[in-house]
């Protein structure tokens, strides 16, 4: 498997730059790809670079090749996790076609407007016989509208699988941007309709197990994903009490290690906590509601889980050429806490996972936290399907 990992992907061109200055970084990544053969590019911008400068540089250098992307909370490069790398993925026109629509206002959320725009996009995007269609969603990670957004897309595009990642802002949780047509946008989302000659496979997994500990949200603002009260007590101290730490010790790392799960029909969904406010409220990264019974979760065998989740093969048994990965930033924090980040990077490298750390992942019509959502692309069929 390792040997296999040494080979760079064949059907996407990847360039990275760790240059500290935006212009240099852009120049480096642009030089690393063949623009003439490129249909479109995805770019993930590190916290350390001036996103606006990167956007301008790309507009100037990409020679008209459309570039989409967002700010990130970390990058998954050919080498694994990175925090300060500008990552550019160039999708060759030999195997990809693309169309995009920008949803530039998420608040207030207009279902009909978004649905109309996406339907139009879907209708106008010509279908190529024999090619496969998927949609990619990049949303402002601080908009807190991903739940409705993905739900709407899932409804409008019933036959098209949608994979999404929410833009990040390092670990600041301050402001995030999506990049469309050379512009950086807040409170916006970007839908990319992609058709590919390659076959692909969606992947989505987490590694949490429920514990005995249950709690009830007794006071919350679902709009802002804020929970004021848990079990009738102020949320932050009560959470600290339940996970067994002092109120003062609450940090993203504690949150990453002790996610809260929602139980529904036998499945548990992670509701990640982004922060504890000064008013002892907890800010969640996914939808919550008043009166919801939740279960405290605990991570188990993250590496094994990752390996198993990425052990994919196509109909002929071949591994993916590359995997576009949306990895929750809390997973990375957990790995770093547990000092297994380099092992995760090894797995990513071996599986040719490329992507970024998100503030939330969308797949199957659901917005989630602390999961890995990916699209595995396989090389062209060597023989026709039987």
């Amino acid at each position, binding site marked *: 498997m390792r040997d296999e990992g040494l080979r760079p992907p064949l059907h996407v061109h990847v360039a990275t730059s760790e240059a500290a200055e935006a212009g240099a970084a852009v120049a480096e990544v642009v030089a690393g790809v063949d623009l003439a053969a490129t249909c479109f590019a995805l770019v993930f911008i590190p916290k350390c670079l001036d996103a606006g400068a990167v956007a301008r540089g790309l507009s100037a250098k990409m020679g008209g090749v459309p570039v989409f992307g967002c700010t990130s909370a970390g990058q998954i490069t050919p080498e694994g996790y990175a925090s300060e790398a500008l990552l550019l993925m160039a999708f060759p026109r030999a195997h990809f076609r693309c169309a995009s629509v920008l949803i530039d206002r998420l608040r207030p959320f207009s279902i009909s407007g978004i649905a109309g725009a996406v339907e139009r996009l879907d209708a106008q995007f010509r279908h190529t016989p024999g090619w496969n269609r998927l949609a990619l969603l990049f949303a402002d990670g601080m908009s*807190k509208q991903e*739940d409705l957004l993905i*739900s709407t897309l899932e409804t409008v595009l019933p036959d098209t699988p949608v994979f999404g990642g929410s833009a990040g802002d390092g670990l600041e949780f301050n402001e995030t941007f999506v990049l469309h047509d050379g512009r950086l946008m807040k409170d916006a989302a970007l839908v990319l309709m992609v058709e590919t000659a390659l076959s692909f496979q969606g992947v989505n997994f987490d590694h949490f197990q429920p514990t005995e500990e*249950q709690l009830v949200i007794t006071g919350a603002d*679902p*709009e802002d994903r804020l929970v004021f009260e848990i*079990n*009738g007590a102020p949320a932050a101290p009560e959470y600290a009490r339940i996970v067994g730490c002092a109120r003062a010790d609450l940090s993203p790392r504690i949150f990453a290690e002790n996610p809260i799960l929602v139980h529904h029909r036998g499945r548990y969904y992670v509701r990640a906590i982004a922060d504890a406010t000064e008013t002892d409220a907890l800010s969640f990264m996914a939808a919550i509601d008043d009166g919801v019974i939740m279960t405290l979760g605990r991570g188990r065998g993250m590496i094994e889980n990752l390996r198993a989740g990425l052990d994919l093969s196509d109909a002929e048994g071949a591994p993916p050429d590359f995997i576009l990965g949306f990895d929750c930033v809390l997973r990375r924090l957990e790995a770093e806490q547990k000092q297994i980040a380099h092992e995760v990077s090894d797995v990513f490298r071996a599986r040719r996972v490329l992507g970024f750390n998100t503030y939330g992942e969308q797949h199957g019509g659901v917005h989630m936290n602390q999961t890995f959502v990916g699209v595995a692309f396989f090389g062209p069929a060597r023989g026709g399907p039987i």
Partner: protein
Amino acid sequence: MSLIDASQPPEVRLERQERIIAALMRRADRQNELSLSAYSAFQSAIELQAQVAAKTRDLERAASELETMRGDRERTRRNLHEALSAMHEGFALFTEGRLDVCNDLFRNLLPDIADRVGTGLSLDGYFELMVQSRHLVSTDRKIHRPAAQLGGSGEAGIVMSILIEISGDIWYQLGLQRTSSDNVVLLLTDITPIVRQNRSERKTLIDRQADYLQAVFEHMSSGVCTFSPEGAVMMQNRQFRHLLDVPMTEFGRGSTLERLLGFMQAKALIRDDAFLEVANWREQLKKTGWLRRRVRHGKGRVLDVQANTLPDGGFLVELKDVTLESRATEMLENRVMERTAELTRANARLTEQFEEMARVEEELRLAKERAEAAVSSKTRFLAAASHDLLQPINAAKLLISTLQEAAQGSHLLPMVDRLHRAFSSTEQLLHALLDISRLDSADPDAVTPAEVNLGALMESVFADQLPLAEAKGVRLDLVPAHVVVRSDPVYLHRSIQNLVVNAIQYTETGGRVLLGARRQGGRAVLEVWDTGIGIRRADQARIFEEFARAGAARVGTGMGLGLSVVDRACRHLGHALGVRSAPGRGSVFSIAMDVVDWRARRGDPAALIPATSEGPFAHHVLMIENDPDVLFAFAERLRLWGARVIGAGSGAEALARLEDGMRPDIVLADYHLDGGATGLGAVAALRDVCGAHLPAILVTADRSEALRREAARADIAVIPKPVKLAHLRPLINWAVWRAGIPTKVSNDSAPRSPRLGPGKGDI
């Protein structure tokens, strides 16, 4: 750890419990609301996801089942492949016209196209490849679009079989079978051993036959040799070499016709250069398929050479020694030639003789012509002289006639009378001379036969010569006759006149001369009787010569030429002239002539008879009539006309009258008699009794055809009642006249009645 921090005081814990309960209650309430919150979106999404997951599981299960099935199929296919590979026959399955599966044996049948035989190849495509392959030697049939031949209709069970020969003497039977509407199976069966065995058996058979053939060849009486199409000797026998006198060394297997002919030419065995040209042989054989020649060989032997082409293009030459036959033929031919020459000579002689005869004949003809010309000129001279002499005699007669008038009562009268007689005799002599000269001339028109009424002629002569007879004191009588004969009217008249004059001349005064005619068979015989001096038998033949005369004839009255004219005329006309005579008692001269059958003259029988109603009617009539009044009236009328009539009231009475010795000329009978008797019966009885065919006329009111026929059969004429008298008289005349002519009455033809004139009155 409990839901509520146990370290808190009870009131706090109670308050928290209440809060929890409140929150849960709110939540429970909201479950029933239709809100569009983010969390509800999440909830519905995961509901959906669960359903999707369930479906996905189903799909995965289905996929795994499919996978299993695919595995099974793969395994089956693999098994099939293995089975096919193990087969000893080439196998290919074409599904929907495309190659689906085949085994290695099939694929590698033709190595040069093996790499192009793969899945998806069409059936026709395979056969095209097959035909292109250089390993394919032959097929027993033309392979062309076998897919179409198998039938597009897709009926199963259609089978095609093709025999294929592949390089290296390998043979396959290629069977095509449509096993279903979509599938065609090709089966290649190696039949090389069978083919080879067949061939070897055939070869053995052929070898045996060749031996047999050689033996037959050797023992044939004629020389036989076969040549290959190229002219090489294939097989020959001893007789062949013997006949040609060619040594075995010159003529082994493998030598050629050319060499053989060359040898014979070199040894001068055959001196026929054209025969020895190979090209001539070839041309002839190619053109007609055979060649036949007779050649003379060396020491006087004659050979018949016959060559025939064989099916493989070669030919067979047969030699026969025909020396003896040839000699015999020559001998025969020579003999035939000699005989032919002899015949030719004889023919020439005959021709000469014939020509000689023709020449003589021609000379004779010329001589005859000359003689005839001489006679003719003599006759012409005679005729001309007689004619010229008549003129002065006529003149002299007129003068004498005048002189007789003047000399009336003088003593010169007797002398003038004598003179008149002398000139009359001269005139008659000249006329006779003229006749003789005409009859002697070669003119075929000297006499003109016609139908002549002999009775009229006799009456005419009788009338003419009556004065002469009276002057001589001889009684001349005429017996009238009614008969028509075939003769020349002029010469017959002259002949009768001469005979009568002659008779009068040689009869003394007081003697008699009788002129009459009688029937004798089919002839009429005219006779002239006299009681004259008669002619001695010795003179009878001489009297017809010119100027022959009985010794006692008086000078000046003789007509020496008379009998001569009669004799000539009769000879010309074919009449028989006869004479019977006894010296001192008299003579009878007769002329027998053919009677004309009046019935053959369909024209006008009335013209032949004295048809006038006013003519003589001296018939003896027997009349049978049962009505006495009618009988009386009829009898009176007939008597008025001049007939003798005997009346009878019945057939019996008529018979009684007949027995009196009277025989009637004609019977006139009424049909209906007393007592049911008929006139026909009465007539039959009368004829029976008198033994003669009495002419009869039936008088009747019955006009039926049946009666007419019955009467006709009995040769009885019928006249209907009431009787027209104008018809009755000619009918009686005709019936009587007809009875005088010997007739042969046929039963089926009724006698024709004479033409009946218009009636004058009825009884």
